[in-house]
């Protein structure tokens, strides 16, 4: 008996955590057994097991793969572009006070507003193909990266920079030896936020103007009352976000053990 108690005490947090999720799924699954749903409600209702079956079916006939490749392409290209733009601009704005002052109004204003409001304009400019989605992913992801890189650069120890300078380093060396290594944890934190924004961009972008992609799949399924398909899409997005978020979070804690713990943000 004490063995069981000890086993529970040692793993209390994971037992309770997993237990609650299992309980939630079981409760959801068993709702139709407890109450007979009226016809209007059962139209909107599905259970986890139905979702799992649908997921398997859609995997088997290749529907998911087809949509997934498009979404993944938009995500990867958009995020890649935002890294290619966000990092250099963050570094430059962090190092040059003049450029910082010149660009700051745009960065602040664009960052404070959800970039999704640019979607109708991007659709006019780039059409309803993949490019409008790539651009909205880019717009969403670039600011967390830029601002975190900037914060990282701003936080660099002045003493280290002066030290490297007095040994005759040029700006390029200062960047390479001091600034970049110092801001890596900040950049990784920015990347975590950027991934979340990028997924948001893919989802919403595909809702409005797309025929292919997981977001379009969800939107179309919803209008056809295929609730299980909506949840299949939701589950995929959830899985991807969780994998990315926790992989980057792990990297982050490895890189920044010295920093105090922060509030959760996604």
């Amino acid at each position: 008996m004490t063995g069981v108690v000890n086993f529970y005490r040692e793993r209390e947090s994971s037992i309770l955590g997993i237990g609650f999720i299992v309980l939630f799924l079981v409760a959801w699954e068993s709702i139709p057994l407890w109450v007979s749903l009226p016809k209007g409600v059962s139209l909107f209702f599905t259970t986890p097991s139905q979702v799992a079956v649908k997921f398997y079916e859609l995997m088997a006939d290749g529907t998911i793969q087809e949509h997934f490749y498009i979404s993944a392409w938009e995500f990867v290209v958009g995020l890649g572009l935002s890294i290619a733009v966000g990092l250099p601009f963050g570094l430059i704005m962090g190092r040059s006070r003049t450029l910082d002052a010149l660009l700051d109004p745009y960065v602040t204003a664009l960052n404070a507003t959800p970039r999704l409001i640019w979607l109708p304009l991007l659709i006019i400019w780039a059409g309803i193909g993949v490019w409008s989605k790539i651009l909205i992913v880019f717009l969403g992801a670039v600011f967390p990266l830029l601002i975190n890189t900037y914060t990282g650069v701003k936080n660099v120890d002045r003493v280290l920079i002066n030290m490297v300078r007095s040994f005759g380093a040029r700006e390029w060396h200062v960047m390479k030896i001091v600034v970049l290594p110092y801001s890596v944890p900040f950049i990784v934190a920015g990347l975590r936020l950027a991934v979340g924004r990028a997924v948001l961009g893919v989802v919403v972008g595909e809702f409005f103007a797309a025929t292919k992609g997981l977001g379009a799949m969800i939107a179309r399924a919803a209008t056809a009352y295929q609730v299980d398909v909506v949840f299949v899409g939701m589950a995929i997005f959830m899985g991807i976000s969780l994998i990315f978020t926790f992989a980057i979070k792990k990297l982050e804690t490895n890189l920044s053990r010295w920093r105090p713990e922060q509030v959760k943000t996604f």
Partner: protein
Amino acid sequence: MDVKEIYQKYRRLVLGVISLISLVALWEFALTYVITYDPFFFTTPSYIIVAAKELLLGDRLWRDLAVSSHAFLWGFSAAVIIGIPIGAVMGWRRRVEYALDPFLTGLYASPLVALAPLIILVFGVGLTSKAVLIFLLSVFPFIFNTFSGVKSTDQLLVNVVRSFGGKERHLYFKVILPSTLPYLVAGARLAIGRGIVGVIVGEFFASSEGIGFAIAQFGDTYRLPEMFVGIIILSLIAVALTEALRKFELIIAPYRADMEIR
């Protein structure tokens, strides 16, 4: 000398204003004299100003803003009322934290916006579905920031109150609430951003009124100047709300001014 000193002091502001003005001037000049453009795809600041005057004087824009803020207020208040107690209990009772943390973290990290079509299907087009979407997006910053705030309460202060015979009620109002407040305001700031996402997505997707709908409709009908006015107004509102809360954060907790809570 004097001018130089003033410049040094307001350098950032001066450069920022110069940069804004020159961008607008360049935009206007380039599209008027250098590049011939298709009015379906581009527009110039002068047209935007004309459209702004028209929209601000008319009542359509104000009606749209009222509709959107109505939905926003409902969703946001629900998030406050439900999010803060959940977060407080999670921070105060260890077992509740263990049980709820993985589940809620999973939901927080995943794009719940993907449920928007379903929510609209269930609750119909209109206020309710928008409010539900806003609630769903903005409740998590409240939960997790309250949670962190309560959890980071100084145990020493709790013990002091207890050893001087303080009641539970004193504990809550004298120690826990003040130490949680800055986290709450930071959470509200995050929640506003996510709530506005909810407004926009809800109105883009299925709506017949509201600021998001107005922007989408102007886009669909290629009325670019009006669309820019909508975008600029929504940006101004978002910036004003966020900056006001940031200032508020500094006022209620100046000692945390150097602490970055995003």
